[in-house]
């Protein structure tokens, strides 16, 4: 009998709850029983409440068990796990798990399925099809295909990716760059990390396609230092891609060059802002640049540069492989395709959910997420990261699309949703938003640098009941100034969590409370 493939994720979140120990136990316990197993360290399927999730390849497809602890492995093997036998930890056939079945995995099609660094796995599962097609197209044809897909920036701003690429294609310069923003600093987001750890070749392929599309010969991936596993996997993928001629002096033997470099951030949240990231890539402090000029015209080292988030780029290869219509056909209104929603915080079933735009916030939190992890009622959710609005459950009918959220002063952003139960103190969350801005501001513009510090003080005074009405007015004034006069989204969006907390949870700002420290 040949060795049975057993999958135990190498994703850092899975490892954070014991996947390495489980993998070791699989090898050790199988050997002890004379069973032949082939251990594969895959990415995560994104169902973190089930991690470590162990899968076994059977004649009927992959069968899942979870959450598995190292001490369960011997018992699982004895119960016949290698034949897919039932056990109290059985989850059945992986593809039939309800949480996965309701998803449309477009960008994340291979994450959790393949060995992230296996060239054979990658190609056998549709990898390189997009790049091969791109090599048969003119740059304008590639850009047009991306534009027609309706893809919008997944980093948060939602700017049409094709329009950005067109600008860089139309710019004439001796040198152009692709810069991938993998500085995923927002709490409640981890999809970029999962993709880099689970399907790194996809990002390599995407960067090469972007290079072909706009005429750029060099690409940089800027990964945050807080992601050491993603850095390791991504670097290895780049080395392997060079070795196989996927990138380098002649992309897939086409004679067209594309070099790719990985750069590591150093703990500055602001470097997730595109111009600050460019400064950092150039070896300077992460101070934001005033726009215009747009990076598409004068970006990295002053050259036309495509700056895209990991997921925006990673969605391009399947768009090229399957055609713009395959993506465009999904979604609602002007929010086309799928979004990789991320459920985080105090939620029972946290993880990712890639699905077409349009399901409601309530469906996402209650139905998919299963409510809170603590079992208490949901009180607030923050959508779109630390600069996103806090929403109460009375807003759970909101459909998850860019325009519907914008209409109520919120943003879908990158699709990260952080859930809070009824023990949350919203005045503290509002204060934290200002405090975070003060901590992470690059300091270039006054509304952000000073406004955030004053914001903390004003909120403290409101909660302490000092000159309450006057200070509420002052806070509103301050928020308005920050929104209108900040140079970038850091200062410009910090008022979103503050104002929304005040609007929806005024009782938490009541003067009966002590000054928070």
């Amino acid at each position, binding site marked *: 009998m040949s060795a049975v493939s057993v999958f135990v994720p190498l994703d850092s979140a899975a490892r954070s709850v014991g996947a390495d120990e489980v993998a070791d136990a699989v090898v050790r316990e199988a050997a002890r029983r004379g069973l032949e197993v082939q251990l594969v360290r895959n990415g995560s399927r994104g169902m973190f409440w089930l991690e470590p999730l162990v899968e076994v390849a059977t004649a009927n497809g992959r069968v899942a068990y979870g959450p598995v602890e190292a001490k369960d492995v011997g018992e699982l093997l004895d119960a016949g796990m290698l034949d897919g036998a039932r056990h109290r930890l059985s989850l059945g056939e992986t593809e039939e798990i309800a949480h996965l079945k309701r998803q449309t995995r477009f960008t994340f099609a291979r994450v959790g399925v393949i060995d992230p660094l296996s060239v054979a796995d990658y190609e056998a599962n549709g990898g390189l099809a997009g790049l091969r097609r791109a090599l048969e197209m003119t740059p304008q044809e590639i850009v047009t295909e991306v534009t027609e897909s309706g893809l919008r920036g997944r980093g948060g701003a939602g700017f049409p990716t094709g329009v950005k690429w067109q600008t860089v294609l139309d710019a004439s310069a001796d040198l152009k760059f692709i810069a991938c923003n993998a500085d995923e600093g927002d709490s409640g987001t*981890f999809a970029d990390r999962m993709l880099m750890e689970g399907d790194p070749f996809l990002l390599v392929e995407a960067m090469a396609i972007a290079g072909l599309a706009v005429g750029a010969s060099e690409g940089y991936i800027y990964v945050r230092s807080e992601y050491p596993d993603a850095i390791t996997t991504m670097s290895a993928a780049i080395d392997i891609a060079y070795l196989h001629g996927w990138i380098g002096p002649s992309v897939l033997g086409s004679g067209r060059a594309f070099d790719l470099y990985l750069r590591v951030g150093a703990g500055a949240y602001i470097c997730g802002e595109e111009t600050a990231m460019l400064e950092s890539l150039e070896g300077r402090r992460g101070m934001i640049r005033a726009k215009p000029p747009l990076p598409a015209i004068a970006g990295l080292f002053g050259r036309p540069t495509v700056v895209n988030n990991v997921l925006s780029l990673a969605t391009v290869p399947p768009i090229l492989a399957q055609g713009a219509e395959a993506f465009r056909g999904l979604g609602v209104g002007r929010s086309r395709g799928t979004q990789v929603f991320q459920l985080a915080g105090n939620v029972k079933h946290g993880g990712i959910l890639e699905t077409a735009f349009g399901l409601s916030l309530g469906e996402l939190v209650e139905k998919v997420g299963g409510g809170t992890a603590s079992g208490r009622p949901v009180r607030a959710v923050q959508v779109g990261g630390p600069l996103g609005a806090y929403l109460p459950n009375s807003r759970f009918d909101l459909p998850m699309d860019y325009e519907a959220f914008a209409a109520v002063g919120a943003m879908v952003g990158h699709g990260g949703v952080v859930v809070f139960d009824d023990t949350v103190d919203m005045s503290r969350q509002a204060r934290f938003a200002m405090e975070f801005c003060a901590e992470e501001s690059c300091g270039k513009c006054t509304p952000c640098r000073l406004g955030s510090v004053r914001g903390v003080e004003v909120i403290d005074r409101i909660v302490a009941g000092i000159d309450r009405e006057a200070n509420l007015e002052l806070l509103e004034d301050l928020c308005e100034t920050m929104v209108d006069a900040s140079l970038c989204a850091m200062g410009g969006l910090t008022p979103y969590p503050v104002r929304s907390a005040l609007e929806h949870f005024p009782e938490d700002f009541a003067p009966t409370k002590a000054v928070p420290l």
Partner: protein
Amino acid sequence: MVSRTAGSYTAWSKERALEIVEKHADERGPLMPILHDLQDVFGYVDPRAVEVLAEALNLSRADVHGVVSFYKDFRTELPGSSVIRVCRGEACQSMGAEQLARHARALLEVDFGGTTSDDAITLEQVFCLGNCALSPAVMVDGRLKGRVDEARFDDLVADVKSQAL
């Protein structure tokens, strides 16, 4: 950046620093990769490196110092044998990270940024480790840990201390 086990750092040497600079000679805007490498080798960015880098890269000392001081990752002194980072982002807050942060400081008797008196552990705060569905998250010497309650934190600290012996 990527933490490593203690005791493996090299003492500051200008020659070694220049070797690192040389390794990045062909890169565009090499200051950040150089600083990361310096910290990886020496455990911190020695203030003496500022002048060395400024001269080698044709930058002003103010430029180099400005970069070193801007980024939280770059240390100007040796850390403890282990570095424990506690996440204080919103997702972790929703699962009790603030309580964990208080507990960590009380247990180790240091504030964030401080090193325990026996040089065993440097405690840091961080805003998001990308483990937001398994909050609260902590990173111990570059290894991510999830669902870290106070008891698990105590175990992690005990592990770190026993490895140091």
